[in-house]
């Protein structure tokens, strides 16, 4: 397990997170993945506390890539990162959650660094201009 970058999946929905994890688990077993999905009481939403504990789980010395679904998930992630102040945690902005998480996991499994994974995810970016 050591040596691999972590993946943090931030979604408004617990089930979405679980679903993506299952999808990844089918092919990849030893990449550290943590979920921060839904609120503390199981409702739709995201929470800074959950993001923080996901970082505590997988944000080791290799760092982690954070992927999110909708707007406020990103804001919460940004606030947590401002508080923890570590430069090996990166938010994959405007990257679709399912595809992004899957590709990030594949790349992490190959031993790619957080920076290298971010470059790969760049190709998936959603264009908001149209």
């Amino acid at each position, binding site marked *: 397990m050591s040596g691999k970058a972590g993946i943090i999946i931030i979604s408004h929905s617990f089930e979405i997170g679980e679903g993506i994890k299952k999808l990844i688990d089918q092919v990849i077993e030893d990449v550290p993945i943590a979920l921060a999905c839904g609120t503390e009481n199981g409702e739709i*939403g995201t929470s800074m*506390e959950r993001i923080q504990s996901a970082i505590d789980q997988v944000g080791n010395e290799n760092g982690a890539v954070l992927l999110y679904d*909708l*707007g*406020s998930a990103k*804001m*919460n992630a*940004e*606030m947590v990162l401002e508080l923890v102040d570590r430069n090996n945690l990166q938010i994959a902005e405007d990257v679709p959650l399912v595809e992004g998480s899957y590709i990030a996991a594949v790349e992490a499994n190959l031993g790619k660094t957080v920076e290298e994974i971010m470059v790969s995810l760049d190709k998936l970016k959603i264009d908001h201009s149209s």
Partner: protein
Amino acid sequence: MIILTVDQAVEWMKEIQKRMDEHKEQLTVLDQAIGDGDHGINMTRGFTEVTAKIHHVNYDSVSDVLKSAAMTLMAKVGGASGPLYGTAFLKMSVAMQGKDVDEHVFKQAIKEAVDGIHSRGKADFGEKTMYDVWSQVADFLEEEEVNDWGGMVEVCQATIEDTREMIATKGRASYLKERSKGHVDPGSMSSLYIFEALVEVLELEG
């Protein structure tokens, strides 16, 4: 002259809570039209938690009251409004740290809050978000020698009317494109209640 005391700051939070509760349905209806329909519930829950928390604490400064409110809002309000309002109150708290809140400190705090909302939400003026309302209030405070705080509420109301016909380009409403036209932005409306509550307590004798 001190314009906002600790007691008034606590009262501000209570007045906000009262208004969110009164307008819960309205905020929800607005959010159902162009968002995910939880703004009324979220705001009521958030400020109910805020008032419950500050009720049990003796605060030394306005800054501490607002910091407490900020932390609670970040943790308890779902949706984008938690981080945005949390950031706004946190920035105000930082601007007021170690200071009595006179007119100058107050105006500076609002300005910092607006900058905070701007950088957190990455919205620019005219994108039909709460940032429109907050930035207009800050502009008003910057330009005016304020004798009548009620002017802030008028600015909020005017901005809400001005942005009603705009197309939202930020947040969940932006997915609706043209269909967001004609609907009032829920975050702008809840911002109005925050300023209404503020004006109410500023006009109390400190």
